[in-house]
């Protein structure tokens, strides 16, 4: 079956805005993503190398702030929801299935390596920016946080600034 068309972007944006608004109304906080990656990563470190975790001050203070363990975190549960929601949507629209998407002029290998490097940069940047596109930029905009909006401008400004250098990854 052919994949269905994507939703009208404004409609999708409106629905996403309502989800965000509902989340703020009920919980007093916005949505996020990178924080969950952090929690899971730190939980893995604590599990695999407890000695090392105990010796790293940053991890130590993080685990102290999360008495229920780093996985008992709002964002971890939220991202589990994201996985479910996205999968459901993908199945509904015939888009689910093992696939790799890349620019026309690069190999699969290059794409995977670029994705890992890009992810690593995003992971690092989201820690410095105290949130990623969802937690800092989108949720920050909804509550008019100065820091959130500055982070948003920095993300997209830098994206445009570097776009030309990496055009071979994406364009013909």
């Amino acid at each position: 079956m052919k994949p269905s068309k994507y939703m009208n972007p404004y409609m999708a944006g409106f629905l996403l805005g309502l989800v965000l608004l509902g989340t703020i109304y009920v919980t007093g906080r916005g949505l996020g993503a990178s924080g969950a990656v952090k929690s899971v990563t730190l939980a893995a470190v604590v599990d695999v190398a407890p000695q090392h975790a105990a010796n790293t001050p940053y991890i130590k203070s993080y685990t102290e702030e999360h008495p229920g363990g780093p996985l008992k975190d709002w964002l971890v549960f939220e991202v589990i929801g994201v996985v479910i929601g996205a999968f459901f949507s993908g199945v509904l629209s015939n888009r689910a299935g093992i696939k790799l998407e890349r620019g026309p002029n690069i190999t699969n290998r290059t794409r995977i390596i670029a994705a890992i490097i890009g992810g690593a940069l995003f992971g690092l940047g989201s820690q410095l920016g105290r949130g990623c596109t969802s937690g800092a930029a989108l949720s920050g905009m909804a509550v008019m946080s100065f820091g959130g909006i500055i982070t948003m401008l920095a993300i997209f400004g830098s994206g445009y600034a570097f776009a030309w250098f990496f055009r071979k990854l994406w364009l013909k």
Partner: protein
Amino acid sequence: MGPLVPFIFSNEFNLIIALIAGIGFGFTLEQAGFSSTKKLVGLFYGYDFTVLKVFFTAGVTAMIGVVLLAHFGLLDLSLIYINPTFLKSALVGGAIMGLGFIIGGFCPGTSVCAASIGKLDGLAFVFGSALGVMVFVEGYPLFEKIYLADAWGPVLINEKLGMSKLVFAFLLTAFAVIAFYVTRIIENRVNGVQAKMPKEKIIIYSSAVGVAFLVLFIIAITPDSKTRLESRINRELQQKDVTSVMISPDKLANEIVNNYYKINIVDVRSPEAFKAYHLPFAINIPLEKMSAREWKTILKQKHKANYFYADNQQDAKKAYLFAVDLGNADNYILSESAVGFKKMFTDLVPPAENAGKNEQNIYNFRRKAATDMATLVEALKNSTQPVVAKTTKIKGGC
């Protein structure tokens, strides 16, 4: 009144809410096409501005919603999480994220979406972001200086720009509409299409924009919930007859001695005045702070009557009307000021030798009541402090 956590929903249940919010988040992101890396980077090469459209529409919708809910007193903005500003860290972090976006083709939320429907590049990106987090965690001493520099706290952009929330919401909405229009032209040019928007769509889009501005307009012309409450109370202050709920100091003293556990004595004066002297068992809720959420549970107790007093009748009456507005509890006003009560009990003067029997009786009653109250206060020193509902700031962020 929102936020509902932790007042109505517990922190444990909050995790279930997180799951539900996440499902909505993931579903809409995927439906919008954010699981496709090509669609995402289209933003940076001008061939597909979906990201901008979705992102701005979502941001503006939520923002107008937040302003609207706050305006009608449904959401307490003082409690919601505002991302703190650390200027240097935000700029450097944002720049690194932008670079990561253009190389990796995702951001964390979208990569999770992509991985969820089986995209291997999405999975690789998620793996990469875990590595990036590790770099930060292990190298934290290196990043610490920049991470903690320029800590401005939860600054709001409208305050920074010196405008009201409403004006900023208006400007951002207008900006978004212009951006939608301009990017459509760019998109068509880059893709070499000369598509004309169908009439139907133009009507739908214009009405959606119209509704957004209409909501902002309604917020602008209607008084907010606090102003409305204030004017209602001021009106009642003029009209309402409160003689039936006026309580004499003697009667209150009697209540304190016999029923201290059934009453709240509320001192609505300033904390300084409260400190200098207050009635036995009184708690201090300054008049201007009465609307704070932490007092609601105290003022609304069904099985406790509230007795208000101040330095003047006007303030006590105002506090009374405010409590009546909250509902549930029985409310009364002390007919004397704080000073008056003090004179009658604490600084009690014996009547003259030739005073009548009645005067002597009153004196005896007050002297006994004063002693009893003092004894009670002493005996219950530790157990009568009111339990104040904590209004901790909500934690959030990525």
